[in-house]
């Protein structure tokens, strides 16, 4: 295709937007609303995932071993466990470290009583491995594995917490996904309507183009450009709004509900935008393209 044909199609696409100002404005507004809500849910999902991840990273399973299991054996088992998919990392606590840690807490203020145990560790069989999970949902399979090891005496786990994290993350994902899908379908419908109006307005011009030998692509291209531009502008506006509002909203939330600041850690906007910006723009362009291409395909059989 020639360069001047591309320029012509681009110019015509831009002109189309201004020819149907009201419809274009309606499409851009709807698209902006959809992408804004998308951005909102996307940010929420990212933050929830981030918080779940943070919480998961502190989620651990503690493994105690049978009396008489040597430190070498425990160390070997620790390495085996650390190599599994479910495991983020493993920390070993020897019997002496366990006692030191326990007595510091238990005999606080009465340290002289602890001296009575000098040379006699009551937790001699309580060396343990603390296993941090890479994902909360994997806890069950890991626990099953750990319990199947002969040298393992006891596995301490936190069933409720693990499932809650996984379920909450999934729930947020499903709800957001459903809302986003509905919004995107509305956006496709509206862009399709705008392009339909454009085609109706330009029906005579299109029939002249076809009669003098314009290819289908030449006729369609300006409408595709129109749809893509509407999608692009409709995506850029809400993304800019989210960029500037995000920080303020988080500061406001933390200020108003200061209790949250201890349990909630929000992602910085740059982290959210690293993926939201390309996803939002591609989505806008994609919806614009989809709406206009299906409509032109339907209406331009001259």
């Amino acid at each position: 295709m020639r360069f001047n044909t591309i320029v012509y199609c681009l110019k015509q696409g831009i002109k189309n937007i201004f020819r149907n100002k009201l419809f274009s404005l309606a499409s851009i507004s709807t698209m902006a609303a959809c992408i804004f809500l998308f951005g909102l849910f996307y940010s929420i999902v990212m933050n929830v995932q981030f918080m779940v991840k943070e919480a998961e990273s502190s989620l651990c399973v503690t493994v105690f071993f049978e009396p008489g299991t040597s430190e070498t054996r425990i160390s070997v088992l620790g390495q085996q466990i650390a190599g599994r998919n479910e495991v983020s990392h493993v920390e070993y606590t020897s019997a002496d470290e366990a006692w030191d840690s326990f007595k510091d807490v238990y005999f606080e203020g009465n340290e002289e009583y602890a001296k009575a145990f000098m040379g006699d560790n009551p937790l001699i069989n309580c060396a343990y491995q603390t296993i941090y999970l890479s994902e909360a949902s994997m806890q069950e399979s890991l626990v099953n594995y750990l319990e199947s090891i002969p040298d393992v005496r006891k596995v301490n786990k936190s069933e409720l917490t693990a499932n809650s994290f996984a379920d909450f993350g999934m729930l947020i994902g499903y709800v957001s996904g459903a809302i986003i899908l509905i919004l995107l379908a509305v956006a496709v419908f509206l862009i399709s309507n705008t392009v339909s109006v454009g085609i109706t307005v330009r029906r005579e011009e299109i029939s002249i183009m076809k009669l003098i030998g314009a290819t289908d692509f030449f006729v369609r291209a300006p409408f595709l450009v129109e749809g893509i531009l509407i999608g692009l502008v409709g995506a850029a506006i809400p993304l800019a709004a989210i960029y500037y509002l995000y920080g303020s909203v988080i500061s406001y939330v933390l200020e108003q509900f200061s209790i949250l600041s201890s349990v909630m850690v929000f992602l910085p906007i740059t982290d959210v935008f690293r993926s939201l910006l390309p996803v939002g723009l591609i989505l806008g362009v994609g919806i614009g393209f989809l709406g206009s291409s299906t409509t032109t395909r339907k209406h331009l059989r001259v």
Partner: protein
Amino acid sequence: MSPWGSRKLFLRGDIDCIYGEYEMIVFENVSKTYETGTPALNNVNLKIEKGEFVFIVGNSGSGKSTLIKLLLKELEPSGGKIYVNNKLLNRMKRRHIPRYRRGLGVVFQDFRLLKDRNVYENIAFAQRVVGTPARVIRRQVPSMLSLVGLAEKYRSYPKQLSGGEQQRVALARALVNNPAILLADEPTGNLDPRNSWEIMRLLEEINKRGTTVLVVTHNQEIVDAMKKRVITMHKGLITSDEKKSGYHQ
């Protein structure tokens, strides 16, 4: 070298029939019945040679415009075969239609100019559609405007022109891509006698330069005066086909 008639309608090797090199348009037993059941053409047989000037006359509903639409591939025949420059139109794939149409020039009774573009842009549009480079457009559009006598009105918009001038713009647009065939459907239908003659003079000039010209018309005075081949149609049939003839009802 003639500036018109040189455009090849098809690529080399795109030959479907054994008609000689002189036939430009051939209808073999062509019928057309619309979806409503209305018959428009009934077993029409017709041959038009390259470089001919042909009038197609007849009452309303006689099938003249259907014949033009079949040639433009706006309609498909219900039966029979249509060859243009030895290419069978019936078998033509949809994606090849634009290339075929670029070899045709079309003029309509209602001019069909783009109202939001000036004279220059209307003609340039036809070249832009077929991907002509901008420098060629800048060279050819003024020369085409000179030919139709509108060089000084290149910046005017259609509504600022008379009917005759608008039809001349439409003619310039039809010719700017060097078509092998010019199809004119009632080109003088909306014009006064003086402008009608001006358009006919231009069509004759174009024909002399090698373009095959088909004119559908009701204008008896012009048909009688020009002494060209006249095909008369009635209720979808060709009732007479005479060379250097006049208007028959």
